[in-house]
């Protein structure tokens, strides 16, 4: 569970991306984070993983202030998938996913039998078990994205954040990926938040929608959000 308490975010105090925002993201739900370009979707996600300092307010992860815990403790609570395309030659998918076990392994990163099993289970959950020994430099964007999500699953965190996970994918892959995220949230009782520009995917597959209308944020269950008219107001296009 993520609680935002009166948070303000921005590059300087004159121009705040978010001002005095409070809301709660619960486990077992997928949330689409939508908003126009440059309104602070990525910044909010980065604030939750502690790499973007807040101007004001607190962020609680399962009741604990993220400022009070070590990077390693935070990594056992929140996993993150960025927009960055990762292509490492000579590193098998299994090894990439194994890096997700880092918060639990010893100083040199030695994998126990239990860790190995979690890695294979994570690859199975995203449907990439047969790719375990292939390297990512010879795979498509959709396949790589799934491996990076498997890595986040191997981190065994109650919360997974994804920054525009669908941006390099074609239409069928976008739907498949979002369906996978919804299934993971419901079956594994995880709190999944991803930023996206796909309004139709957000409306059809997500449980709640958080809409940033800088400097405020509306966070409502999907059907309520559709009826509220916030989406139409923010994204209206005059032709």
């Amino acid at each position, binding site marked *: 569970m993520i609680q935002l308490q009166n948070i303000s975010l921005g590059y300087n105090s004159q121009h705040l991306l978010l001002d005095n925002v409070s809301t709660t993201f619960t486990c077992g739900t997928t949330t689409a984070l939508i908003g126009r370009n440059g309104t602070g979707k990525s910044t909010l996600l980065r604030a939750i993983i502690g790499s973007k300092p807040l101007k004001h307010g607190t962020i609680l992860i399962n009741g604990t202030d993220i400022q009070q815990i070590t990077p390693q403790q935070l990594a056992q609570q929140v996993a993150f998938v960025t927009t960055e395309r990762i292509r490492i030659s000579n590193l098998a998918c299994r090894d990439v996913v194994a890096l997700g076990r880092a918060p639990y392994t010893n100083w*040199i990163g030695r994998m126990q039998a239990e860790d190995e099993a979690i890695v294979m289970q994570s690859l199975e959950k995203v449907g990439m078990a047969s790719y375990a020994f292939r390297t990512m430099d010879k795979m498509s964007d959709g396949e790589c994205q799934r491996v990076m999500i498997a890595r986040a699953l191997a981190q065994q965190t109650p919360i997974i954040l994804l920054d525009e996970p669908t941006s390099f994918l074609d239409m069928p892959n976008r739907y498949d990926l979002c369906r996978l995220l919804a299934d993971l949230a419901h079956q594994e009782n995880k709190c999944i938040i991803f930023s996206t520009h796909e309004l139709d995917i957000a409306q059809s597959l997500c449980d709640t929608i958080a809409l940033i209308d800088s400097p405020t944020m509306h966070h409502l269950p999907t059907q309520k959000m559709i009826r509220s008219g916030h989406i139409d107001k923010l994204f209206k296009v005059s032709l």
Partner: protein
Amino acid sequence: MQRHSTILFVILSLLLVILFVLDLLIGSVHIPLRDILGALFGGDVDAATRLIVLDIRLIKAVVAVLAGIALSVSGLQMQTLFRNPLAGPYVLGISSGASLGVAIFILGMPLLGVATNSTLSSIGTAGAAWLGAALILAFVASVSTRIKDIMVILILGMMISSGVSAVVQILQYLSNEEALKSFVIWTMGSLGDVTSSQLMLLLPAVLIGLVVSVAVIKPLNLLLLGEQYARTMGLNVRRSRYLIFLSTTLLAGTVTAFCGPIGFVGLAIPHIARMLFCNADHCVLLPATALCGAVVLLGCDIISKWLTLPINTVTALLGIPVVIWVVVRNKSIV
């Protein structure tokens, strides 16, 4: 995969032993293998042979092994940290810092009218180089605490290097022929100028640097995905950066101080290790790189003795094709 690595480690270790013995055999004076083994293991050989084998050839071969390991491992660390296949041990300004120290020592002191037999000269070329390298690195490290983006640090290191090189050129331009020649010879690198007492400084510095490099194996593996990902997987990025800088200073800084700037080894060897072992995991790649570095620098030393060429020209001529191959193949290494 594991078997492939084990076989390679065995082959490279054997190659290391063979080249080490070969390096002891080759030199301006012909000494048969039996006398070399005799000198090494306390057999019956004359004093002159014992002196040549133990005080000259053995030290040089040990220095070649240490320098090969140190430069390659620090090159690997820099390539992973900066996620750049063309990074090497000198990207942070270590060699230009060392050359500034030496330039001030060899070129600057006569210009300023400081006599070469004064107390200043007792720190020696190596001391001056070490001071120069440590000073530049301390500067880069202190500035880097305020910089979040690792690419900015890379550019910063390169710009400081260029700036320092310009200062060195000014000193060169103003210097007399004799001082200039001894400076240019230093820049060509040499594995043979290390005395046995200097080896007692070089050896522990390299060993401590290697211990630190083993301690950062897990951070290096996480950094393969970049600092942002590494942070979300629980890595203390700032502390890891410092440890990697410390290791590189001890490894590359010390070797450069005693042997001069030896180019291309630190840049090319990690690529050779990646190609041979087909593995990006630093648990395998780090020892593999160290072993390849020792083997290659021993080989370069043998060639340089055989053709009487400076070591730097040999490493450059062998290293450049590897670098070109990396650029042409253009595979993302990290």
